[in-house]
């Protein structure tokens, strides 16, 4: 089509995972009995995606890497009626923030794939499809996440968001346990209804703004611009030759569209009251999938949300009461419930709910500051959660069936100090205590826009929840650093050893843990790397 330019290099972060998933399918077709190959391909693809996002990280200011642009090419540029200097419209637009989110998603996916690495190298039976399917679904969800972070039009946005969600539902169900099915069911119905409402929101957006783009100028067109000068202000894209005038619309439609989108994405972020699936699905799925749900999925959700909120930011809406309500509810309920969990995965699930509240907290100020703070907090949460889940996965890999309960971590400090150290760093980061400096930085960053906008009650709620959160994570930490109660008897120990001997292969899983911990340590030592997002 005329004017549409495609820059494949820019698209690489999305293309690599897609190519990877096709490759997995082909490889499975050729030799279906290899157990590790799908994961190897998936890991390489995710790594490739991570590498491909790197050029986008250095983008400063407002510059972006973009492609699928409609007004590209000199011939059409002149023909474009320049309405208030509207920028060109691109279906892919990755700036530094978007690239960082993409990178985070890719790295988290790499860790998840490492955690899911099969236990044995034995060839799998003919009728098992688990490994390639898991790899394909993981890669597809990663691709969706990457795309959604860079999408600027409702079409791509919807498809990518669904691409990031649908495979995860299948992943949860894939382990086939009864609890997994329960989790998948709950996740499924929640996500279906949410998606339907999301589409409704998008339709409202389109109806309200007349533009299929999630861009600031589209948002502006709903409000003042068209109403003020209906004769001159018009949206005319290359093929619409006759200038047309949309009826001036009330901002209410855009408002409803925005809150519906927030609610529709909120389920993915596990915001209260869209959260109910979270503990069930986390507890039901395998640990790598739970990790994926807690990290990559959240990145996708926030990326999707930010695309919309950055568009409406120009409306100058100072604050959104709905988001404040969701944030405070999420923090409170998440922390209160997490306090009562003895299963670490459920604890992390509820902690996710609480942290989701923190993630959207700065968004009460729909501004560049709020958006940056929210992304910063999300990244700190993702990194810390990744480490915590990795530790759980390694512990479970060591001694299957033991590692889900907090008491299983008694005396971890003595058994494996490195793992315990990683866990301590992760939990303190989540709680916002030193030595998890990055968590503290994230919390302060998140609170800044709130305070700047004068939301005193919300800041108070957040502060109370920060304290509650400390209690949540200290429960687990206490187990880690306290003395271990002697084991029940020698027979149990012997069994442990036998089990450990049979399932001793875990170098890749440990590598995943090491990677995640390395990232956490780096951002803890050098918070600037994250804070740069704000600038």
């Amino acid at each position: 089509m005329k004017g549409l330019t495609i820059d494949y290099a820019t698209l690489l972060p999305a293309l690599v995972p897609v190519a990877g998933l096709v490759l997995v399918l082909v490889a499975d077709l050729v030799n279906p009995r290899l157990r590790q190959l799908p994961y190897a391909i998936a890991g390489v693809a995710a790594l490739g995606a991570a590498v491909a996002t790197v050029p986008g990280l250095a983008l400063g200011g407002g510059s972006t890497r973009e492609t699928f642009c409609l007004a590209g090419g000199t011939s059409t540029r002149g023909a474009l009626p320049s309405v208030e200097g509207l920028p060109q419209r691109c279906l892919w637009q990755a700036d530094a923030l978007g690239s960082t989110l993409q990178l985070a998603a890719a790295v988290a996916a790499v860790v998840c794939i490492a955690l899911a690495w099969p236990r044995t190298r034995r060839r799998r039976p003919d009728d098992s499809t688990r490994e390639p399917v898991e790899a394909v679904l993981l890669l597809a969800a990663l691709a969706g996440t990457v795309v959604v972070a860079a999408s600027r039009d409702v079409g791509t946005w919807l498809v990518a968001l669904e691409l990031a969600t649908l495979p995860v539902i299948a992943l949860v169900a894939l382990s086939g346990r009864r609890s997994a099915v329960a989790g998948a069911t709950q996740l499924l119905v929640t996500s279906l209804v949410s998606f339907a409402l999301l589409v409704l929101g998008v339709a409202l957006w389109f109806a309200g703004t007349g533009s299929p783009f999630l861009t600031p100028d589209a948002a502006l067109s709903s409000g003042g611009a068209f109403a003020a000068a209906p004769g001159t202000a018009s949206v005319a894209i290359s093929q619409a030759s006759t200038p047309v005038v949309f009826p001036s619309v009330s901002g209410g439609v855009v408002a409803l569209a925005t809150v519906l989108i927030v609610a529709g994405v909120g389920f993915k972020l596990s915001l209260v009251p869209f959260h109910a699936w979270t503990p069930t699905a986390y507890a039901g799925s395998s640990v790598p999938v739970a990790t994926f749900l807690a990290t990559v999925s959240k990145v996708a959700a926030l990326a999707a949300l930010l695309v919309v909120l950055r568009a409406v930011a120009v409306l100058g809406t100072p604050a959104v009461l709905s988001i404040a309500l969701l944030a405070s509810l999420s923090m409170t309920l998440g922390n209160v419930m997490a306090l009562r969990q003895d299963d670490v995965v459920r604890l992390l699930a509820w902690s996710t709910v609480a942290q989701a509240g923190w993630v959207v907290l700065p968004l009460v100020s729909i501004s560049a500051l709020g958006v940056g703070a929210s992304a910063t907090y999300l990244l700190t949460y993702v990194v810390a959660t990744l480490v915590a889940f990795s530790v759980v996965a390694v512990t479970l890999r060591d001694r299957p069936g033991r590692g889900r309960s907090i008491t299983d971590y008694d005396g971890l400090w003595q058994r494996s100090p490195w793992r315990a150290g990683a866990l301590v760093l992760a939990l303190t980061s989540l709680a916002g205590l030193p030595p998890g400096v990055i968590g503290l930085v994230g919390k302060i960053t998140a609170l800044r826009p709130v305070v700047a906008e004068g939301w005193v009650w919300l800041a108070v709620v957040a502060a109370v929840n920060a304290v509650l959160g400390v209690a949540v994570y200290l429960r687990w930490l206490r187990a880690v650093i306290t003395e271990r109660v002697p084991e029940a008897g020698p027979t149990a120990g012997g069994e442990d050893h036998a089990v450990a001997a049979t399932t001793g292969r875990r170098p890749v899983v440990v590598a995943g843990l090491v990677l995640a911990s390395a990232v956490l340590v780096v951002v803890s030592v050098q918070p600037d790397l994250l804070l740069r997002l704000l600038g």
Partner: protein
Amino acid sequence: MTTRDIVFVAVGAVTALSALLSVTTKHVVHAALWLLVSLGSLAGAYLVLGQELVGLVQLLVYVGAIVVLVLFALMLTRAPIGPHAEIDTPRWQRVAGAVLGGATTALLASLLLPLFAGATADLDRPSTTTPQIAQAIFGTWVWPFELLSVLLLVALVGAFAVSRIVLQRDGADRHDADHPDHPDHHDSHDDGDRTAATTAVTSEPGTGRVG
């Protein structure tokens, strides 16, 4: 009030009525059939609005595929034929649903009606024709379109794998009955009529192993 308006009102009334019936009927299968009617008449509404392609796709995909899938699913899950009191949630929840549904309608209507008040579409000179749509899909919108293909592929793979895993497990349970890992197997055999369901489904090799 033009002719098209009158036609649309008629079609729309059918759509709304059948939609209402599909969410209130006590017959499980009837619900799916009423949905069929509703979606079909919605396709008619698209035609009235001058979007032939959308209407056709609606007929093909929704009526032809999705509703048929729903019907299949109802049968596979042994949906009872005839009125069934058990398909509805408790009364308080239905009341809540009615309130929320009413609120949704009211909210949307209160915003959309002013938005479209007086807006008309001149369908004799349609702004978007089918060739234009085709060009847009494969031109402007080629990127999401390609992604959509990936989504469909992944959905198929996922759906296949999910349904297959359980079949496998049921099969595995049957093969070595003393396997200690699957207490649920015994559970499902404990309550009588469900056992019949499980065996009925699993004994159809065609359903599960179809790829």
